[in-house]
């Protein structure tokens, strides 16, 4: 994987090596050629041309002299001549055969000489080989012939030698060129070698530098990893540990030597996660897909050497090392942060629980304090109605006013708590502003009149319909008005309201209450809205509030998104103002009457029909009070201590109306109402909620549960009478068309109780158990007919079990049998066997259907 720009020296080296290879190749070729040339020189396949031609000439001269000698003598000996001829003849063979000259490429050059010699020999040889006489006779001609040949031989030889010399020169030049080439190539090779050596040296130096650098980096990395605060574990694709740093030793408790070479699955992965780990590794090996690896930080459970499991935060990266893929895991022991987080969450949960407890406490207080107060106030009223002597009447009035005062205080405190706890639920419904304000003024006019103070209204004629919480707004206005009245004697209180449109659907309510009373000192102006502030503690003590009225008003105003404030001039009067954004509503239908605040006087109940009433109330005092009130109003009442008893009673008797408390132990009023509405003789009766819960959303809930009306505790006889006046007496009840609810196969009430107590699953389990047990018990009962004692015990058991699951028929049946058995009727079981079977079949079918539903 050469990356060209990075490894320039290496590239250069490759080029050098290539050049060298080429040079070596060229050199090899040249060397072969030189060797061949040299061999030509060394193993000269030819004899010396000069020598041979000279010898040829010499032999010819000797032949000539032998022939001339023979010519000069009479009858000369011819042996020497013949010998010289033979020697010459043998010498010509070299030229005539031409083999040697052929090898020297001198074939053409020698050709004329060869032809010349052939011609001579053809003429001379017969003479030489002939008889002595003929040879002697031919001697003159022979001498002439040889002389001529000698002249020709000379010139022809010289020409051949010249040719040979030229060729030899060429060959030498060729050899010289070859040698020069070899030398050049060798020189080039040498230079290449030097260059290669240089590049090798350079590369070596670079490699050394890189090695040193790598060592430095590696030692730095080693130190970094070793001293890292996080545990660092390096593992191979086979899951075996390759490295294990100090932090990892500290975290996991294994030493580096113990860890290295071990599988992660044996080391730090809890046994129950090993399979998942191996599956993950296998998947990655096969598909190369990574999930945890390179997947950022995860939190897992790891194992220490001690066997302790603990949470770690981990991230794994992968890297392709020289030995294949490796994984580097960075691990942080987060058992402490996790523990801290848990502690923090526990603390938060505790705080939330405390907050919830406070809220619950408020709710309970709302009930627990107001309910007895309700009883007290009602009781005092009843006492006051009875003829008492004037001195007692005074105390009764005192008691009455004190109780009402107390109730107001309780209400104030609870209001403040509610707002503070953020539990103030504001209703949002359309209402008419003008009538509401007018009715508030009306309520206070009698009080004002006693102090010779007039209340005037300054309200625009065409106020639009607005949305909001009329009750809370009324509470503020009432507070402001009553304060104004309280501090004004013989003066005037003006309630002014203007709506400034702010948009298509909103307006700003600008409301003020101005009095001509004693006024407030400037330094006290801000304080008046603080909690428990009473500017003049001595003033009007008997009628004094808690000092919370303006504080509540401020909180309410702010909760509704408004502002409240006051201006005053001591001695001249005060002006309290309220600015509140209020959505306006199209006036499509007549607005509902502000029922809460327009208190109508109840008619005297003398003409009213006598009603048959059921009072469901857990508080004994309240029960007593209500019973007494109803008696005074001339009605008949039945009492029930909780929802469950109330449902039972309502089922078997038709009441004209049921007064239902909401918060009750065992079964609350809402649940009880639902059950009464479900079945029974009173299912169409009017049901009136009696509650201290006065919130609008609560009222909605009551209506949803099937209640028709609502009485707010504490109630007065008047309230009660008015509410009951809506109850009409129905025609006398018709005989029941369906079986009496009490005769139902299953007791819905009981089932409902079970459902609440056990939940759907619990009921299913219980019913299944009941069906199993009863089947067995029924069998035993059949076979136990001969033993009345055993039969009686079984009947008792069956009756109990049937009652438990609400199988009322079955319960009554077996209870009856038990009684009969106790009374000595030993055959009762046998006689009632058919009934037992039928009822059992009905009950089990009904229960079965119930659990399937």
């Amino acid at each position, binding site marked *: 994987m050469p990356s060209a720009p990075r490894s320039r020296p290496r590239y250069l080296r490759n080029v050098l090596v290539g050049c060298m290879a080429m040079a070596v190749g060229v050199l090899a070729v040249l060397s072969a050629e030189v060797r061949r040339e040299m061999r030509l020189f060394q193993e*000269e396949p030819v004899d010396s041309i000069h020598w041979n031609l000279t010898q040829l000439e010499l032999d010819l001269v000797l032949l000539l002299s032998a022939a001339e000698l023979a010519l000069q003598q009479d009858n000369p000996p011819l042996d020497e001549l013949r010998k010289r001829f033979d020697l010459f003849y043998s010498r010509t063979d070299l030229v005539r055969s031409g083999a040697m000259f052929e090898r020297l490429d001198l074939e053409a050059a020698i050709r004329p000489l060869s032809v010349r010699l052939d011609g001579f020999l053809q003429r001379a040889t017969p003479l030489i080989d002939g008889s002595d006489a003929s040879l002697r006779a031919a001697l003159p001609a022979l001498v002439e012939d040889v002389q001529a040949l000698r002249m020709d031989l000379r010139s022809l030889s010289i020409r051949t030698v010249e040719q040979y010399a030229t060729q030899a020169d060429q060959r030498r030049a060729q050899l010289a060129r070859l040698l020069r080439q070899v030398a050049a190539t060798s020189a080039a090779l040498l230079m290449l070698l030097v260059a290669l050596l240089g590049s090798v040296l350079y590369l070596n130096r670079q490699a050394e530098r890189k090695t040193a650098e790598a060592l430095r980096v590696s030692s730095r990395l080693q130190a970094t990893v070793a001293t890292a605060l996080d545990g660092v574990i390096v593992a191979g694709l086979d899951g075996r540990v390759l490295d294990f740093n100090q932090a990892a030793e500290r975290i996991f408790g294994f030493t580096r030597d113990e860890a290295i070479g071990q599988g992660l699955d044996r080391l730090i992965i809890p046994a129950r996660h090993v399979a998942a780990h191996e599956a993950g590794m296998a998947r990655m090996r096969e598909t190369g897909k990574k999930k945890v690896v390179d997947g950022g930080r995860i939190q897992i459970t790891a194992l220490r050497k001690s066997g302790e499991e603990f949470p770690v935060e981990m991230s794994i990266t992968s890297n392709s090392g020289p030995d294949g893929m490796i994984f580097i895991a960075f691990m942080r022991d987060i058992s402490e942060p996790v523990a801290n987080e848990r502690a923090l969450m526990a603390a938060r949960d505790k705080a939330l629980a405390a907050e919830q407890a406070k809220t619950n406490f408020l709710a309970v207080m709302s009930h627990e304090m107001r309910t007895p107060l309700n009883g007290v106030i009602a009781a005092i009223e009843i006492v006051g109605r009875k003829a008492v002597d004037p001195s007692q009447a005074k105390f009764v009035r005192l008691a009455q006013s004190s109780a009402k005062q107390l109730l107001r205080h309780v209400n104030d405190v609870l209001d403040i708590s509610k707002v503070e706890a953020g539990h103030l639920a504001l209703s949002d419904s359309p209402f008419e502003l003008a009538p509401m304000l007018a009715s508030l003024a009306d309520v206070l006019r009698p009080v004002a009149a006693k102090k010779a103070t007039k209340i005037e209204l300054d309200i625009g004629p065409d106020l639009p319909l607005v949305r909001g919480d009329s009750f809370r707004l009324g509470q503020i206005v009432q507070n402001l008005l009553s304060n104004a009245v309280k501090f004004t004697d013989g003066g005037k209180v003006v309630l002014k309201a203007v709506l400034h449109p702010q948009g298509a659907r909103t307006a700003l309510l600008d409301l003020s209450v101005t009095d001509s009373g004693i006024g407030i000192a400037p330094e006290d102006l801000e304080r008046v809205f603080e909690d428990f502030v009473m500017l003049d503690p001595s003033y009007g003590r008997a009628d004094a509030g808690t000092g919370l009225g303006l504080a509540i008003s401020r909180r309410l105003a702010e909760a509704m998104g408004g502002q409240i404030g006051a201006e005053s001039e001591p001695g001249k009067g005060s002006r309290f103002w309220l600015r509140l954004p209020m959505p306006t509503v199209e006036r499509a239908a007549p607005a509902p009457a502000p029922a809460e605040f327009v208190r109508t006087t109840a008619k005297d109940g003398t003409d009213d029909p006598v009603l048959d009433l059921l009072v469901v109330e857990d508080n004994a005092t309240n029960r007593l009070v209500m019973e007494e009130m109803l008696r005074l109003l001339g009605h008949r009442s039945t009492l029930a201590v909780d929802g469950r008893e109330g449902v039972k009673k309502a089922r078997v008797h038709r009441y004209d109306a049921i007064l239902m408390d909401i918060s009750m132990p065992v079964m609350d009023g809402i649940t009880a109402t639902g059950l009464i509405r479900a079945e029974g003789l009173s299912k169409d009766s009017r049901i009136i909620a009696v509650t201290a819960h006065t919130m609008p959303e609560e009222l909605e809930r009551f209506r949803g549960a099937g209640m028709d009306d609502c009485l707010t505790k504490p109630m007065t006889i008047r309230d009660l009478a008015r509410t009951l006046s809506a109850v009409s007496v129905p025609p006398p009840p018709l005989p029941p068309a369906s079986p009496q609810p009490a005769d139902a196969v299953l007791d819905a009430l009981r089932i409902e109780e079970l459902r609440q107590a056990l939940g759907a699953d619990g009921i299913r389990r219980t019913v299944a158990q009941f069906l199993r047990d009863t089947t067995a018990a029924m069998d035993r009962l059949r076979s136990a007919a001969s033993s009345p004692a055993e039969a009686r015990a079984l009947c008792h058991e069956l009756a109990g079990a049937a009652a438990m699951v609400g199988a009322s028929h079955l319960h009554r049946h077996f209870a009856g049998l038990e009684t009969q058995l106790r009374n000595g009727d030993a055959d009762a079981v046998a006689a009632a066997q058919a009934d037992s079977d039928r009822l059992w079949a009905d009950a089990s079918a009904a229960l079965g259907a119930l659990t399937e539903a």
Partner: protein
Amino acid sequence: MNSLRRFSAALMVAAGLLSAAAARADSLPAPQGDVILTVSGAITNTNDDGTARFDMALLDSLPQHSFATSTIWTEGVDTYEGVLLTDLLDALGATGPNLLAKALNDYEISFPVADATAEGPLLAYRANGKPMSVREKGPIWMIFPYDDVEAFRTEQTYARSIWQLDRIVITE
């Protein structure tokens, strides 16, 4: 094998020479035909007043040797037969370190006796089974197996390849 053959040949010649020596001072049989080679100088066995003269028959009585080769002077490959120089020198009991070879035309060449080996030179007097005439470089051609032995393809060897040989002198 070669040396054994040469040894037995030497024994045989020696035996012949010994029997001749009983009658005359010369230990070699006298030539009956035309003398084609005369060896003189530092030799032990002679047949004519300190020299050894050979005719064809006498040469034939010595160990025969032959090889085929081409030469730079001839065309094609020919088979040459004759007596190895070393065998001849052995037979003559030559004691000198050098020898001088002379041809009919008085060409001569000198070289150390030690250069005569079992490989060559061969004193060839038959080419392809026929006696060689003077015109065909006869009667004796001192020839080397140029084709078989690369070392013989040198100028020095070519100079020693004396033809028309008729005299050898063993010198001190």
